[in-house]
């Protein structure tokens, strides 16, 4: 029994991991683009982006999942996510990326805006181009400053993946809960918690390590 349960939980955990990794891969770069949009000198773009961020951050992720999956089908009479599990999975990834990119964008923006103007000006008077100034001078300093809020957000993401079940995408808690109905046992659910704990523990160690690595300088 234990082995079968663990097998099922592991499968659910891989699905969780899958959502987690794809979301990060999408949301980390897209968040940076959104951050630039929200700092744009072009007002209409800035307001548009900030409004989107406000809506996404101001409404529950669960609601966004449901709206993104069912919305197109009900409004346009065309479920372009495709039928079956694959369609659901794509919708989940899109919703997670959108949601987390908006949260990340605010962290990036805070980080970028906290870099003193003098750093840009020092780069400018040394004849560097704007991209050089951003990538060679500013970005590293931003990364150092945003590691703590980012690690919080990423650990929240690990736990948020469980929300994907609202549009019937299989993940680890679902796997554990299934045994309550089928076999009347609760301990598999307990082990799902262990999976989360261990995984978040590893992430915490990783972020601690990165933070320490970047501690070779102040500022």
């Amino acid at each position, binding site marked *: 029994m234990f082995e079968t349960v663990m097998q099922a939980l592991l499968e659910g955990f891989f699905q969780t991991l899958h959502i987690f990794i794809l979301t990060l891969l999408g949301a980390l770069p897209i968040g940076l683009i959104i951050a630039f949009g929200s700092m744009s000198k072009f007002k209409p773009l800035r307001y548009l982006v900030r409004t989107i961020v406000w809506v996404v951050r101001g409404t529950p992720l669960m609601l966004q999942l449901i709206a993104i999956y069912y919305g197109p089908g009900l409004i346009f009479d065309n479920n372009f996510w495709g039928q079956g599990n694959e369609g659901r999975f794509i919708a989940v990834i899109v919703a997670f990326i959108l949601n987390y990119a908006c949260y990340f964008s605010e962290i990036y923006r805070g980080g970028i805006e906290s870099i*003193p103007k*003098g*750093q840009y*000006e*020092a*780069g*400018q*008077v*040394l*004849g*560097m*181009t704007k991209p*050089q100034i951003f990538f*060679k*001078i500013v970005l*590293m*300093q931003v990364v*150092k400053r945003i590691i703590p809020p980012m690690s919080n957000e990423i650990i929240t993401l690990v736990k948020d993946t469980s929300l994907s079940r609202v549009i019937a995408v299989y993940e680890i808690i679902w796997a554990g809960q299934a045994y309550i109905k089928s076999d009347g046992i609760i301990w598999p659910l307990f082990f799902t918690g262990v999976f989360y704990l261990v995984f978040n523990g590893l992430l915490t160690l990783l972020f601690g390590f990165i933070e320490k690595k970047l501690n*070779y*300088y*102040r*500022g």
Partner: protein
Amino acid sequence: MSVLKVENISKNFGSSEVLRDISFTLEKGDVLAIIGSSGSGKTTLLRCLNFLETPDTGRIYVNDELLLDCADKTTMRESEIRTKRLHFGLVFQNFNLFPQYNILKNVSLAPSLLKLGTPEEIDTNAKKLIERVGLSDKLDSYPCQLSGGQQQRVAIARALALNPDILCFDEPTSALDPELTGEVLKVIKGLKGSDSTMIVVTHEMEFAKNVADKVIYMADGIIEEMGTPDEIFNNPKSDKTRAFLAKSLENL
């Protein structure tokens, strides 16, 4: 041929006139000290020269080449400004070193991004400049591990690495503890006589008196008086200059 010619520079921030009709010239190798009370526009003038601010009127020539003419928008293209500002270097009041890079990289970063030589040449040159400011033993240190005076000397080496025609200093010692100003002023003084033309905004009257070839006293955005250190400090013509000098001696 003068290395720098500034003609009729004016600059407003909103309704406040910060610079009015500033004109002066510098010969190669000159050290110009700019003195004046707080808010008189000294920093703004240096920022205009380094294209960090755009003046409202006026022209800037370097080696007789017209770099900026406020009446001619074609001289203000973003892409050209980047190369034009390389005629100038700027050392900031608060250093603005790059905290994540060690001293060697702080000095060599810009030359390598601008591809001013092979990596070996750039490295050798950077080390030579760091030696010149007396910090050869700190190549691998990070800015946060240095004293303010040492950081400012790195900033000077960093500016020198691009070999600017005119090196500007904005109160290079005013963020430093008094006992550290000497080492920085000594480095600046040591640059004199090589080809470097320098503009030093300073509150260090002794330095202006002893090192500068030319002194400008600024008040309320205009050049109130300009001359040799002897003329300005010993025989000021304007009452304002006299009052300013009397006051700054009082503060000592």
